[in-house]
């Protein structure tokens, strides 16, 4: 198993993310409608699909594809998720802009920069029933594994597992941020749509990177 992949081969990571968002468009909106206004899936699908149209016929690497995605979300989508995921992907792209090869330490940096970008925008914390409930434990799990000399793939597996747990943890939380917070106790027993989309994104991204690490064509 390899411990790094080439930036130039990473467009597929973004393409796969687009697909998972498109496939979950209705699911995300249905979750969102229980707490908010039901547009999460619609807006995410719109942004990711615009990105797909812009990258599909181009020779782009991982960082360049992430940059297109981030810019589309930030500049063309609006809402809450436009700036949050826009900044998320742009910060990630920035870290690897001049990197030819991406290893587990680079990916950790990408996750941290993405988190920092989000924290500049919002004062939401872990436990507030937001995407941070998925993101923060995922980063912690990834870091824990690489600090214990785990492989890139092992760290990604741990990241996916923590992302799922983090996403599921929002079911029991009372919404403290965004539109759900008005519901108080009534916001319990419902997943947070942002936490779900963050899980889908991290799961897809990690799965695609694992495929690249496992693929034999890269020497």
């Amino acid at each position, binding site marked *: 198993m390899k411990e790094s992949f080439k930036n130039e081969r990473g467009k597929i990571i973004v393409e796969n993310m687009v697909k998972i968002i498109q496939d979950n468009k209705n699911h995300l*909106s249905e979750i969102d*409608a229980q*707490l*908010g*206004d*039901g*547009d999460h899936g*619609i*807006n995410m699908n*719109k942004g990711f699909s615009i990105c797909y149209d812009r990258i599909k016929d181009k020779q782009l690497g991982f960082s360049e594809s992430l940059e297109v995605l981030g810019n589309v979300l*930030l*500049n*063309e*989508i*609006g*809402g*809450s*998720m*436009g*700036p*949050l995921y826009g900044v998320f992907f742009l910060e990630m792209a920035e870290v690897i802009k001049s990197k030819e090869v991406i290893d587990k330490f680079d990916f950790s940096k990408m996750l941290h920069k993405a988190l920092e970008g989000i924290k500049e*925008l*919002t004062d939401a914390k872990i436990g507030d029933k937001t995407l941070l409930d998925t993101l923060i434990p995922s980063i912690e799990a990834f870091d824990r594994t690489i600090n214990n000399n785990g492989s890139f793939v092992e760290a990604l597996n741990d990241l996916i597992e923590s992302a799922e747990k983090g996403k599921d943890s929002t079911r029991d939380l009372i919404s403290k*941020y*965004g*539109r759900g*917070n*008005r*519901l108080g106790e*009534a916001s319990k027993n419902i997943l947070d749509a942002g936490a779900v989309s963050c899980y889908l994104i991290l799961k897809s991204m990690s799965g695609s990177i694992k495929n690249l690490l496992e693929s034999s064509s890269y020497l």
Partner: protein
Amino acid sequence: MKKIINNPDNVVNDQVEGFIKCHQEIIEKTTNPRVLKYNKSPVSGKVGIVTGGGSGHLPAFIGYIGENMVDAVAIGEIFSSPTPQAFLDAIIASESGKGVACLFGNYAGDKMNVKLAIKMARAKGIEVRTVVANDDVSSAPKEKKERRRGGGGEILMWKIAGAKSSEGGILDEVIDVAQKTVDNMRSIGVGLFPCTIPAFGKPNFEIEEGKMEIGIGHHGEKGLEIMDLKPSKVIANIMLDKILPDLPFIEGNEVVVMLSGLGATPVEELYILYSNIYNELKDKKIVVYKSYVGNFYTSLDMGGAFLTLLKLDEELKRLVDVNAYSVGLKQF
């Protein structure tokens, strides 16, 4: 879903096109299709008044562009905040060198997009200050007032800040009076039917036949209390019971009343409700100084009403009396 539309994904662009065609006497396009401006803006020597938010609330927000009102508006998708670029372009369209007051509702998306826009505006040397309306008492308890959303009271904030700006107030003064307006107003909504986002195709939630929801959100968010639909007089009492103690509004106060429909409730019914609200306030010796009844801040085809009360002092009274000319609110 039965709607007069072409493509559900294009409803925002299509409605903005129609709006421009209909209101050319005051509205002007900008280079950004998601920003409209008053055709005389930027007005030399005047603090720019900017707002923005999701679509689906007509006449909010673009309907408040006009004379002594809002200079430029950033337009978002249905119920979804405009982008940082749209807010920035609205700021630029209204800026005459005296700075810009960006006055919007307390929604997470709007706050983040405005934050990024201000960063970009600052890089261009434009001074922007903000006030967020948080008048909707049902959106968070009083001890967490900073979390409350903006509601129909946003219109009164624009009206008063616009008046202050037009009489030559500097940015600090415009911001202060907008904040004072926010601090002195409270709102509550009652929902009878849910709304349908065209691209989603079905209502987000159900309100059963014979029921109403108190504390409904402006985006079809569920209410806090579901109860049997009551006569208008009782609805008036329930709404006032939620907002009067919150500020509080007390005997001898002079107030502005704004009663807005949510889109599908006939204005006739709003006047029935207004009459009951007026009587109830009179009984409590709260003086109605001025009232606005109509569709000011809607939620697509949602049924129900949204009530805002603003407590006046001498300055607010003077400013609320200033003439205004916009699509959503005209006052001569």
